[in-house]
């Protein structure tokens, strides 16, 4: 039974994740009045990349390939910990939220490590930016998580996310949405489409990757996006007291909504200048912090 559950879950995350970037691109195309690439474009790309050979820099060590693999798997396992509405999570225990956060950190570490492998200045730059902005992002996430656990008096995702939304839901939503944009390298932090390497964070880190490792990276990124949107939705929408089906529906709708929002942001906003990025992240952190304080006070009364 557990095995089947695991397999289904795995399938869900692995298969569904690449859909989101497709949707985002569609939205952008639609806003811009273009036809745009098919929704399943990422699936094609992944399939193609999976069959391609690999060009390995002379300087790179085997970790150049191990890095993406570990990052990919770390994200997948993190996803396993993320409850899916009524379905709950594959495994839930006190403090699993911390494991989730640190698995994300592990993924980041490995990506950055792999990026530094080639000794390319661009990838070094990308890695530096990635790890630096992560500091603020981590702060925001932990604040958000704290506020959730203050609301619910629990430290395990399953119980943290289920009950009805707390007083700080709006703040939380805003904060987490910004974090989502930052962590997934979307506009206004990053632009997955441009190829001006200097302006990029994530894309700059994977310049030298090719073939299956690149596929792993792209797929991992899509899983991360789905993960965050699921987190955002369940943190904000009250679905603890809904029927299972309704809850599932709400979750799906919410995720779709988030994706659309991301798409709209991407098509309406321009990239921020780098010196403004920390400002925006700090704002996100402050939003989550306020959410936390609201939750704390709310409990005190």
């Amino acid at each position, binding site marked *: 039974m557990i095995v089947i559950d695991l397999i289904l879950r795995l399938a869900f995350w692995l298969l569904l994740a690449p859909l989101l970037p497709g949707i985002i691109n569609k939205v952008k195309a639609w806003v811009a009045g273009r036809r745009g690439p098919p929704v399943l474009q990422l699936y094609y790309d992944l399939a193609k990349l*999976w069959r*391609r*050979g*690999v*060009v*390995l*820099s*002379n*300087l*790179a*060590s085997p*970790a150049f*390939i*191990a890095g*993406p*693999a*570990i990052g990919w798997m*770390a994200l997948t*396992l993190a996803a396993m910990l993320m409850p899916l509405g009524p379905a709950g999570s594959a495994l839930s*225990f*006190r*403090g699993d939220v*911390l*494991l989730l956060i*640190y698995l994300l*950190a*592990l993924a980041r*570490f490995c990506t*950055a*490590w792999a990026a*530094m*492998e*080639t*000794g*390319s*200045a661009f990838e*070094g*730059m990308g*890695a*530096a930016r990635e*790890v*630096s902005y*992560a*500091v*603020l992002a*981590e*702060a925001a996430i*932990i*604040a958000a998580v*704290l506020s959730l*656990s*203050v609301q619910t*008096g629990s*430290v395990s995702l399953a119980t943290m996310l289920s009950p009805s939304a707390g007083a700080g839901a709006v703040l939380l939503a805003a904060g987490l949405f910004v974090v989502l944009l930052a962590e997934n390298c979307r506009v206004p932090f990053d632009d997955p489409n441009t190829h001006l390497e200097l302006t990029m964070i994530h894309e700059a880190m994977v*310049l030298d990757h090719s073939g*299956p*490792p690149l596929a*792993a990276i792209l797929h991992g990124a899509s899983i991360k996006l789905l993960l965050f949107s699921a987190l955002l939705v369940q943190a904000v929408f009250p679905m603890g007291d809904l029927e299972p089906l309704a809850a599932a529906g709400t979750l799906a709708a919410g995720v779709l909504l988030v994706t659309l929002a991301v798409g709209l942001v991407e098509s309406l906003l321009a990239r921020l200048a780098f010196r403004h990025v920390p400002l925006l992240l700090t704002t996100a952190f402050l939003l989550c912090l306020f959410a936390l304080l609201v939750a*704390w006070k709310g*409990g005190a009364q």
Partner: protein
Amino acid sequence: MTPGQLLLIAFGSLAISIAIGFRMSRTWLILTLIGTISGLGAALRVLLLGENWAWENGFREHAFRLGGESLHLRLDGLSALFLVLVSVVGGAGAIYSREYWSDHHYPSSAPRGRAWWSVLLLSMGLLLMISNGLHFLIAWEIFAISGYFLIMLDNQRAAVRSAGWLYLAASHAGTMCLFAFFAALAANTGSWELGPMRDHPELAPLFWLALFGFGMKAGFFPLHIWLPSAHANAPSHVSAIMSGVAIKMGLYGIVRFSGWLPVPAAAGWVVITLGAISALLGITFAFAQNDFKRLLAYCSVENMGIIMIGVGGALLAVSHGDAPWGQLAIAGALLHVWNHGAFKSLLFFGAGSVLHATGTKDMSRLGGLWRAMPWTAGLFTLGALAVSGLPPLNGFISEWLVYLGLFDAVTSKASFAWVAMPAVIMLAMAGALAAASFAKAGAMIFLGAPRTKPAARAHECGIGMRGPMVALACVCAAIGLMPVLFWPAVSRAVGSWYPAWSALEMPVPLFTLGKVHVLLAIVLSFVAWGLWRKARANGLRRGMTWDCGYAAPTARMQYTSASFAGIVSGWFRWALQPERQTRKPHGYFPSTAMRLERIPETVLERIIGPISVLVMKVSTGVRSLQHGRLQFYILYIVVGLVALGIFVVLGGAP
């Protein structure tokens, strides 16, 4: 064998090895290993079988006393926990030093180094067991001074000398506080004997003395001034034991006496705050360093901060009616003592072999070493993952416990627990920064292309240095994958810290976490291997780094350590106060341009420096009174006479 016998063997062999160390390095190594192993045995017996061991000299009154006090040793859970660390790192370092600081390379200082190493181990071991104020101070001072002489092994270098002096001065400042602490303790209780005395509320204020005195050694943030330079300039095996074990002695002091004595109400908050600050600022400074040993040293400041957060949480819980989350916090802190000891020594050993191979500590002169020294690279990477607190390694377990404690504190919504919220957030930021720092360190040292010739000519270290590193790496992995096995020891230590929490039941998730880690390890390695296979199958082509098509990349075009840390050091400019020198390129055919960035020892150079300058001014002023003119000397006598006369006439009222 009983702990007593084991300890006898340990101290005996170490004592002999002091004398032996000057001559026979092999015998010395064997003796030291016997000593450390039996010490480890004794500690484990106490920790696992829970047979606390105590010994008072049964001789006649006045028969055999040191300084008029009869010897009293005791080895309980807490001491044993630290003793394990001393034994493991002490033994590993002894092996490592034999190749790293060999008679062949350092004929003059290697024998000294061996002897002082044994003295250091011996004094730390005794320190952990002595329960008499006078003897504690003796062991403490011997420990401090042996550390000094170990740092000074290479005392021909001026940098080493100044670092050593700074260490000695700071350490003595701490010791003076401890003088006051123990003297006041003895004056209040009427005896030098130490032990549980929570029932003397009047002793509570002494905690501040202990906090400063021991904190000086523990090196948390404002008191860390001596730490970076000392750890960076000492021989690497010394840095390893200094950073992995010696500073823990300061922590032992704080934990031990906060357990034995009553603590003031504010203690918990202060300690948490100090911990949080040193965690965040420590790692910020670490990230900004270019010297990888300095980076490691500052990272120790961060880790002490993490431990202090845990301890502070526990103190807070104790002072507010034994809130159960305090147990998790202190357990995490004590486990982190082991973890930090393990991975920090591993990292310093790795740093040592890099230094040994290339002769430079500057990361921006290294690079691409993984090819020449795969073992070091791999083990260093493992250490880096562990120190960044990433699963599935040991760092995560302890930080997870501390986090859990703080989260429970917050969710308990007790009004005094608010301090846990900022602590958690700062801890998280520190975690992210740690990952950043070690991504940088590993990448700058081992990845990319060699930036200088020595880096290109590097060679792998021998088995004598590799062995200890492998052993410590195994410890990291073991704690990470099987935390459950280590829980009983930690809970024993917690019990002996605060009896009310003895027989502490294991938090269930730890077991799950262990399983998850094992699964994680398997999956990750399997997938990594699989992807590698897949890439090979698809055809693996070696080529030049693409680098956006730039045809002639050179090693000097790589991102350097300073530029990697640039963003963050910009955010923390207020704390780091970086000193920048830049020469911009200009003209149509730009000539050479440069940008130097130096991170000063802010606290030392911006705060302590001016103060000491002031003191020296005063001293110079006073010294000018000794100007050699006899007439004035006699005048001084008259002045003294008159002053005393007035003082007496006023009845000596101050």
